[in-house]
């Protein structure tokens, strides 16, 4: 095969048998992986299980593995042209098959659709995306090779691009905030979108809260959901048993959660890294099990229902007619609209999230915030400087937990009903993923990650079942590609050369 030469890179002669062998091994591995679990499907029939075969899927998976591996090898050996020629073609064919009904009309479309070898079109979608990815990689490789730039010059270009993205990211914050402020009044902010937005903002707040523990202090907490639960249940119990309003109960819920944070933080002070993660995971699960089984206090699996919604700062209700006191619409002399409450909820969670954000930005410039970051960098050095690691860690745990407690109260109030099912380990994993994937310590990263991980799946409801699968895959891929997170960039809190304000 001819290939474009490049200064500094010598092309090896392509050893075709070796390439085929490597691709063959990949195909064999894929066969071994898919044969058992993909090739056979266990069907639930009355009286037990039956077996169904899906060998077509296995064969297709093996074939794609083989071809994909060859493409990777070609790119690795600086021979992108064949990939550039074939990958877009493959992508085009796959997309054509998937969209055949829209493109060719229902009859032809159905016929073509039968050619899809997989039992589930989502697989073909994923492969089409992979083919597109290969096309882009090949195109970039060709451009690099024909551009005449040396390796160093290309690296420099990438760095400069990265720096420009970082600077852009700092602008993104105010822009997003402005968008959020006007969002409820835009035309496409219907009930569903507002719900999604409120969910996203809740996770943003949780992400910013966890960011204090994981991003700033470097404490790997896999049980953050426990504090979320404590806050939610504290508020729910206060509201349903003692008729306490949302605004009055909020500080209590936060205090309860903070206490839980300190209590659970105490045993884990000396633990590092993975051990800390597992133990906090254990704590999260313990809290959930206790909530599930302590029927008399927490309602067990039935949960707590009838939780009142927040009022307008305790002054007016968001109802058409108030049981006692004013209603919101009466207070402002406007007509009643059911959207009023939900828009209020939106602004409440937005404000709460911004409080966490501003708090974080402020506390980074205070001794305790810097101590958290120093603790993350090197605990032993911290001890040698007279910093008390125990108190520093407990403060991080407590404050992080407090914010989770606030978010939990909001969650309980918004849904009107809570049960232990909402507080599983997966929630902790999601929140941690938001923090990590966005880039440790990056406030904006958390927002971006939350929009991607929470917002997108909500919008594409049909793909709901694949959400967790894609989620797990995303975590793995992003860690492999960028172990520091997508937008990892640490803004110094103080500069000698002119004291610029700390960014996000």
């Amino acid at each position, binding site marked *: 095969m001819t290939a474009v030469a490049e200064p500094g890179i010598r092309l090896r002669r392509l050893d075709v048998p070796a390439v085929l062998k490597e691709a063959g091994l990949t195909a064999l591995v894929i066969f071994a992986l898919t044969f058992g679990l993909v090739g056979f499907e266990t069907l639930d029939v009355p009286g037990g299980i039956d077996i169904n075969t899906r060998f077509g899927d296995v064969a297709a998976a093996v074939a794609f593995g083989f071809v994909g591996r060859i493409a990777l090898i070609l790119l690795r050996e600086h021979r992108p042209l064949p990939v550039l020629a074939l990958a877009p073609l493959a992508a085009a064919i796959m997309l054509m098959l998937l969209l055949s009904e829209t493109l060719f009309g229902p009859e032809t479309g159905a016929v073509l659709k039968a050619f899809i070898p997989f039992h589930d079109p989502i697989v073909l979608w994923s492969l089409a995306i992979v083919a597109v990815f290969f096309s882009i990689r090949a195109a970039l490789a060709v451009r690099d090779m024909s551009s005449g730039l040396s390796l160093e010059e290309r690296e420099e270009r990438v760095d400069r691009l990265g720096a420009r993205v970082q600077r852009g990211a700092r602008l993104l914050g105010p822009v997003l905030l402005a968008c959020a402020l006007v969002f409820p009044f835009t035309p496409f902010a219907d009930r569903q979108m507002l719900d999604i937005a409120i969910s996203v903002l809740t996770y943003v707040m949780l992400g910013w809260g966890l960011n204090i523990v994981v991003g700033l202090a470097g404490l790997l907490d896999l049980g953050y959901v426990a504090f979320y639960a404590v806050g939610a249940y504290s508020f729910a119990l206060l509201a349903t048993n003692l008729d306490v309003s949302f605004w009055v109960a909020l500080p209590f819920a936060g205090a309860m959660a903070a206490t839980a944070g300190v209590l659970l933080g105490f045993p884990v002070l000396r633990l590092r890294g993975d051990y800390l993660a597992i*133990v906090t995971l254990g704590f999260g699960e313990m809290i959930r099990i206790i909530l599930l089984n302590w029927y008399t206090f927490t309602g067990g699996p039935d949960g707590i229902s009838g939780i009142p919604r927040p009022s307008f700062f305790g002054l007016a209700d968001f109802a058409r007619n108030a049981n006692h006191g004013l209603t919101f619409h009466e207070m402002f002399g406007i007509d009643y609209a059911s959207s009023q409450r939900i828009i209020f909820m939106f602004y409440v969670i937005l404000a709460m999230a911004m409080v966490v954000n501003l708090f974080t930005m402020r506390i980074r410039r205070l001794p305790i915030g810097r101590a958290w970051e120093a603790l993350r960098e090197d605990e032993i050095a911290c001890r040698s400087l007279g910093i008390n690691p125990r108190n520093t860690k407990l403060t991080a745990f407590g404050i992080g937990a407090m914010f989770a407690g606030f978010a939990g109260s909001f969650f309980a109030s918004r849904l009107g009903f809570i049960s232990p099912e909402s507080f599983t380990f997966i929630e902790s994993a999601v929140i941690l993923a938001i923090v990590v994937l966005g880039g440790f310590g990056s406030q904006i990263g958390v927002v971006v990650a939350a929009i991607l991980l929470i917002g997108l799946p909500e919008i594409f409801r049909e793909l709901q079942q694949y959400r967790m699968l894609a989620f797990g895959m995303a975590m793995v891929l992003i860690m492999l590609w960028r172990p520091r997170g997508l937008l990892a960039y640490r803004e110094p809190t103080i500069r000698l050369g002119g004291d610029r304000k700390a960014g996000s």
Partner: protein
Amino acid sequence: MQHSFAYFLDQLINGLTLGSIYGLIAIGYTMVYGIIGMINFAHGEIFMIGAFISIISFLLLGAAGVTWIPLALFIVLIVAMLLTSVYGWTLERVAYRRLRRSPRLAALITAIGMSIFLQNYVQLLQSARNKPMQPIISGGIEVLQQEDYIVSLSYMQMIIMVLTVVLMVIFSQMIARTPLGRAQRACEQDRDMAALIGVNVDRTISLTFVVGAALASVAGMMFLLYYGVIDFFIGFLAGIKAFTAAVLGGIGSLPGAMLGGLLIGLIEAFWSGYFTVEYKDVAAFSILVLVLIFRPTGLLGKPDIEKV
């Protein structure tokens, strides 16, 4: 009733059986942690995959007319070990190898991601429902009878315990005597040095994952046969308890992992038997916390001195 010796013996047998299963999974955790210093969060899912491959194999063998039980067991054992090992190998090769020198947090996140991925992978492919299987091995011997309470030791329990002992012996010998075992111990001590003296570190680590996966798959098969029903989520809880067992026994110690497994199994059985069954998992988690606070190196582990 609860105070009789027979009841106690019953719980003891249950605990040892359960503990054997945990122990086999725990070995995988401890070996991986010993050699690359990370918790293979997805190891519980490997166990679960072993169970699924087992159930599919049993059903296929049944459909193919293989009815002689020892043969069926043997075939399923081999098949499960082989195919699950491929998952273990792939896991390391795809997700962990690249991150060996990265911060530990990245490796942990990847492991969690793979765990979630594998759980949902199986869930999507095999549906989220429970998968029951007709008991293949039933019956047992009567051990003790006190008043009306009969303590029996089922054949299944015997098989599990015997198989576990056999596997333990084989793998202990393997670690102690074979080049692989020596290479493994070298890599545990000092990976770079091992590489410099000619140990193929990549292959040693891969084989560690493979062995761990094989053992976990055996545990999966046993779980299937013993409890008669599996689902895609069994890996999560079993994984945490097996990890607790590995820590309890001393991370990095093979006999420790098995000892820890047996202890956790016994604690769980006795807790369920004498207190409540709902909070048995809380008992297991609490053990983990207590061990890590008071004796972080575990029962059979070596003390770690902080290097400043």
